[in-house]
């Protein structure tokens, strides 16, 4: 594989059921597929840290444990941290899966965050060499009441507030949205108006919601979006209150959500039926251009037909920061679709991959 991509290369990291693939393009039309990296492992997620060129992967092996790995040569070689993600031996917790790895804010250049099952936030302040669990969340007074969703008790979304170094949100399934205002010392639940339809007696509990994915608006830091097991929501006040923006979408259930960094009121979701794939014969990305007041169906270039049944997992959709925005969707049947016009049309940019667990896009600096 090539480890020397020209500047301005768009790099798409695709974590799959069997390793990591790197898709690269200079024009976002013609794509080259490199891989298979970390072959044979289940790569739930992979990220590239623009600040220093380090790549991280969540390697959840079938048999021999979960490991965060990093590479300084775009996947040519991989290293294991000196002190990886492992719970204390006497704490009773055992690492099940690593779900996400997120670079810190601009003013914390060596900080990296990771979210795992069982739900904990891990922090490295030395570019991934040593990791410690966030104690405020680890010892949260409500933890004993937390219950897993079908994917486990996973902390899958980490949102370090770019406008406030003391504020961060995390998304946990099935606990919901939690926020810290004091740099991670204390955490509070923020799920008001989000439903938990699976609780027959109280559909609006303080916590216990099955939040699937959480993102922050690129220019308005108090605005958050979440895709939930029971709806699609938006918050205008940093999570204090949530507004149901499902509108006329044909299902309340879906996993991924992505935002358009050039048009901050544009967002993309995929909702699925009970079979956990596209609802009718048309694979569809649903798009809003007005912050969730209305949705249109983005289907131009996406497959349709009686046998088309595609599912998209939690981290299976992302956008890049180019202009116009690129949007990418990876399916559980190994296709990746890309759009370079914010969802007006789509192209199949990779096929025959293992089931895609995650896609993350980055435009490489010069």
């Amino acid at each position, binding site marked *: 594989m090539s480890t020397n991509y020209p500047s301005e290369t768009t790099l798409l990291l695709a974590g799959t059921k069997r390793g990591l693939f790197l898709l690269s393009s200079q024009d976002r039309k013609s794509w080259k597929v490199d891989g298979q990296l970390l072959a*044979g492992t289940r790569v739930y997620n992979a990220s590239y840290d623009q600040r220093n060129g380090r790549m991280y992967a969540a390697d959840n*092996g*079938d*048999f*021999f444990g979960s490991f965060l790995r990093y590479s300084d040569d775009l996947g040519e070689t991989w290293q294991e941290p000196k002190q990886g993600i*492992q719970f204390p*031996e006497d704490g*009773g917790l*055992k690492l099940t899966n690593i779900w996400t790895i997120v670079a810190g804010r601009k003013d914390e250049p060596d900080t990296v965050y990771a979210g795992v099952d069982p739900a904990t936030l891990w922090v490295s302040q030395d570019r991934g060499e040593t990791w410690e669990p966030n104690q405020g969340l680890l010892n949260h007074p409500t933890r004993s009441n937390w219950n897993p969703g079908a994917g486990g008790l996973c902390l899958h979304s980490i949102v370090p507030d770019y406008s406030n170094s003391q504020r961060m949100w995390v998304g946990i399934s099935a606990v919901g949205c939690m926020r810290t205002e004091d740099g991670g010392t204390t955490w509070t639940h923020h799920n008001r108006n989000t439903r938990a339809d699976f609780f027959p007696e109280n559909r609006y509990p303080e916590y216990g919601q099955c939040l699937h994915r959480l993102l922050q608006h690129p220019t308005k830091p108090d605005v958050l979006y979440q895709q939930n097991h029971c709806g699609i929501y938006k918050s205008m006040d940093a999570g204090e209150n949530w507004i149901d923006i499902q509108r006329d979408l044909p299902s309340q259930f879906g996993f991924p959500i992505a935002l358009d960094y050039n048009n901050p009121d544009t967002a993309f979701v995929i909702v699925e039926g009970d079979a956990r794939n596209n609802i009718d014969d048309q694979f569809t990305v649903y798009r809003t251009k007005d912050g969730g007041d209305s949705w249109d169906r983005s289907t131009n270039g996406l497959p349709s037909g009686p046998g088309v049944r595609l599912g998209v997992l939690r981290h299976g959709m992302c956008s890049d920061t180019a202009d116009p925005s690129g949007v990418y969707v990876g399916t559980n049947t190994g296709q990746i679709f890309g759009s370079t016009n914010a969802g007006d049309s789509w192209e199949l940019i990779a096929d025959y991959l293992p089931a895609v667990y995650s896609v993350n896009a980055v435009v490489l600096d010069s």
Partner: protein
Amino acid sequence: MNAVESKAVRVNIPRALLNRTGNQRWVEVHGATIREVINALDAAYPGLKFNLCFETGELRQFVNIFVQGEDARALQGLDTPVPPGATVYLIHSIAGG
């Protein structure tokens, strides 16, 4: 060969973990139980214990350890005695059908 060396346990390393042992398929350590053998392996090849056991110490679900041809899970688990000079296999569960 002195007395201590003669009691070494031979351990077969699965292919997926050869990076831990510098590609050595067979290694020798000392230990009177599976638990001691695992701890000895981790001392010689740091990180190997976490491949085999969770943080809590329990054996991972799909890791099987055979001592003299017997599945340790069906014996005394991690407390299964390992005779001097025994052969131990670390094997993951069969995948693929």
